[in-house]
């Protein structure tokens, strides 16, 4: 089994390499190859999940054996948390690539588009799998450089400006992360995350380590667009082509932002109270301010981008509450409930935000506008887009029986049980704000009187297919609330975070 792990990185990388070369000679090569590769990787990830992962599977790249118990090779580590992220990345990636078959018709140089998308997915898969600090940085840069180019893909004024802003802030974030990696290496003389955790176990929480942690929170917070660092997100995510917006908002900010924070702060550092408080406060601010900013937007994609900030806030407060409880030796069952809620919302957000951006792309594809005031009456003309978008809107604003309701419910219950009453109240209020602006979106886009003089038709099959699959997932993922299914998918990921030291001992012990 462990030999299959590097495929997650190798296959998309090889695809990114082959598409520009062979795509010139074979017609339709790029459109066929990338969805097939991503479908294969999705099935592989599902296969790993259903087999069950007890201990982390680690794969030393190059086959270097540990020397005196010190790992030398770069390790690729697959455990419950990374396999969950791999599933999201490759599934949403597959649906976006399939959707692009029709959507990207109006663009030129499609070979470059598919190659960059493959490169971005290879980078994200690498970030999620790697067990080595510097390797994390390298994969992260692969993913973000591809995303810089994809944001600017339209090469119009707004796209270029958004991409420049994104690049400058992303560059600063990368350097903060690299600086922190240097500081960590200076202290521990190793780069392997498990080995660093092993070394830090003996050390106390000095000022030096706190400084490193703050650098990492700032760096990955910038990548995840948490609220003081959010300025680039609405521009970048709304300017990209819609399938890419779905990838950026649905997957990229989670894979290189939230996932990295989770992995480093739970499994590598010793959880301390101050940092977990900082993370929770940042999450709370994101949740509130993101939703208020989204409320003021009339541009459809900008509204969705701001709402991403707000929804990621939910994920971060769920996980942050778990961290606070773990650092204070509080009730473990409540901590695990909070973390489960956060991860559950992370999975759900990938499905419904991906779907909403694909809907927005479908509307823009057919009507040519993104302004909600200019739309209306699309429900009759685009029935599939309208229905799927209604499902996604209900899901994101937390209406049962869609999945968003259950994950928000779990977070709120955990907040009440853990005696974070203020957070619980704020989470409920923000849920209502979210509902209100999504109802406005539904009303202006689909139900008002039609403002279009020409006839508007439904989008072609590949776009419909991706949207329908995602809306089925939006309903289907609510099944994760039942214990039988939760134990297969969600519990292994929660266990990785709950048993904080297990990660390092499992890898060092091999």
């Amino acid at each position, binding site marked *: 089994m462990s030999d299959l792990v590097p495929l997650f990185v190798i296959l998309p990388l090889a695809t990114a390499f082959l598409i520009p070369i062979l795509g010139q000679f074979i017609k339709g090569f790029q459109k066929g190859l990338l969805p097939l590769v991503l479908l294969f990787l999705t099935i592989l990830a599902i296969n790993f999940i259903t087999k069950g992962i007890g201990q982390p599977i680690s794969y030393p790249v190059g086959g270097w054996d540990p020397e005196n118990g010190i790992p030398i090779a770069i390790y690729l580590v697959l455990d419950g948390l990374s396999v969950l992220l791999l599933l999201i990345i490759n599934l949403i990636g597959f649906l976006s690539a399939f959707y692009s078959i029709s959507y990207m018709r109006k663009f030129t140089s499609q070979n470059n588009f598919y190659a960059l998308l493959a490169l971005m997915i290879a980078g994200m898969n690498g970030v999620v799998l790697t067990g080595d600090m510097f390797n994390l940085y390298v994969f992260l840069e692969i993913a973000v450089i591809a995303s810089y180019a994809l944001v*600017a893909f339209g090469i119009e004024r707004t796209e270029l400006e958004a991409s*420049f802003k994104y*690049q*400058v802030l992303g560059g*600063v974030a*990368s350097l903060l992360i690299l600086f922190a990696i*240097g500081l960590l290496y200076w202290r521990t003389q190793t780069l392997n995350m498990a080995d660093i955790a092993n070394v830090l176990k003996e050390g106390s929480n000095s000022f030096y380590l706190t400084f490193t942690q703050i650098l990492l929170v700032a760096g990955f917070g910038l990548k995840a667009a948490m609220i003081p660092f959010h300025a680039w997100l609405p*521009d970048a995510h709304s300017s990209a082509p819609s399938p890419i917006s779905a990838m950026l908002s649905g997957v990229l900010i989670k894979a290189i932002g939230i996932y990295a924070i989770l992995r480093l702060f739970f499994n590598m550092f010793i959880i301390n109270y101050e940092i977990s408080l900082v993370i929770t406060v940042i999450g709370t601010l994101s949740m509130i301010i993101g939703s208020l900013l989204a409320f003021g937007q009339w541009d459809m994609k900008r509204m969705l981008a701001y709402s991403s900030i707000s929804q990621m806030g939910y994920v971060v407060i769920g996980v942050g509450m778990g961290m606070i409880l773990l650092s204070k030796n509080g009730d473990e069952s409540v901590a695990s409930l909070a973390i489960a809620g956060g991860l559950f919302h992370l999975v759900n957000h990938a499905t419904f935000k991906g779907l909403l951006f694909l809907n927005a792309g479908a509307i823009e594809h057919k009507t040519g506008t993104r302004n909600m005031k200019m739309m209306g009456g699309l429900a009759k003309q685009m029935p599939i887009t309208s229905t799927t978008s209604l499902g996604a809107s209900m899901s994101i604003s937390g209406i049962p029986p869609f999945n968003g309701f259950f994950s928000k419910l779990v977070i709120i219950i955990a907040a009440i049980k853990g005696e974070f009453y203020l957070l619980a109240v704020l989470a409920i209020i923000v849920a209502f704000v979210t509902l209100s602006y999504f109802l406005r979106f539904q009303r202006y886009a689909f139900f008002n009187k039609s403002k279009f003089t020409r006839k508007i038709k439904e989008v072609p099959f590949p776009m419909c297919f991706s949207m329908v699959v995602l809306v089925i997932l939006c309903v289907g993922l609510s099944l994760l609330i039942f214990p039988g299914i939760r134990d297969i998918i969600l519990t292994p990921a929660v266990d990785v975070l709950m048993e904080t030291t297990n990660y390092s001992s499992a890898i060092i012990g091999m």
Partner: protein
Amino acid sequence: MTVYIMCFILFLVGLYGVLTRRNLIKIVISVTIMEFSVFLFFVLIGYIENGLAPILTEELNNPVFVDPLPQAMVLTAIVIGLATSAMLLAIAIRLYKKYGTFDTRKINNLKG
């Protein structure tokens, strides 16, 4: 210790440039300054007083080598830095073609 502090000051100089400059090219230069301060820091943490280049030969007995790992990391990071700078400059040139200026105050289609 002074070297490390000066390295950190270089980092802050770059950060100051990113935050205050109005010219796209100057912003790119500031990012590059930040980048190189971090690279310098990496080389510094691997340096050992009177250390030799880490090449094993038979004549040496009990040699003191500098740490080769940060040097390897810096080489990788320089390549990545090349990619980011090239990307930034490419976008800056495209922006210049669209707007006819490098001034960020005149390039403001997007707000917040």
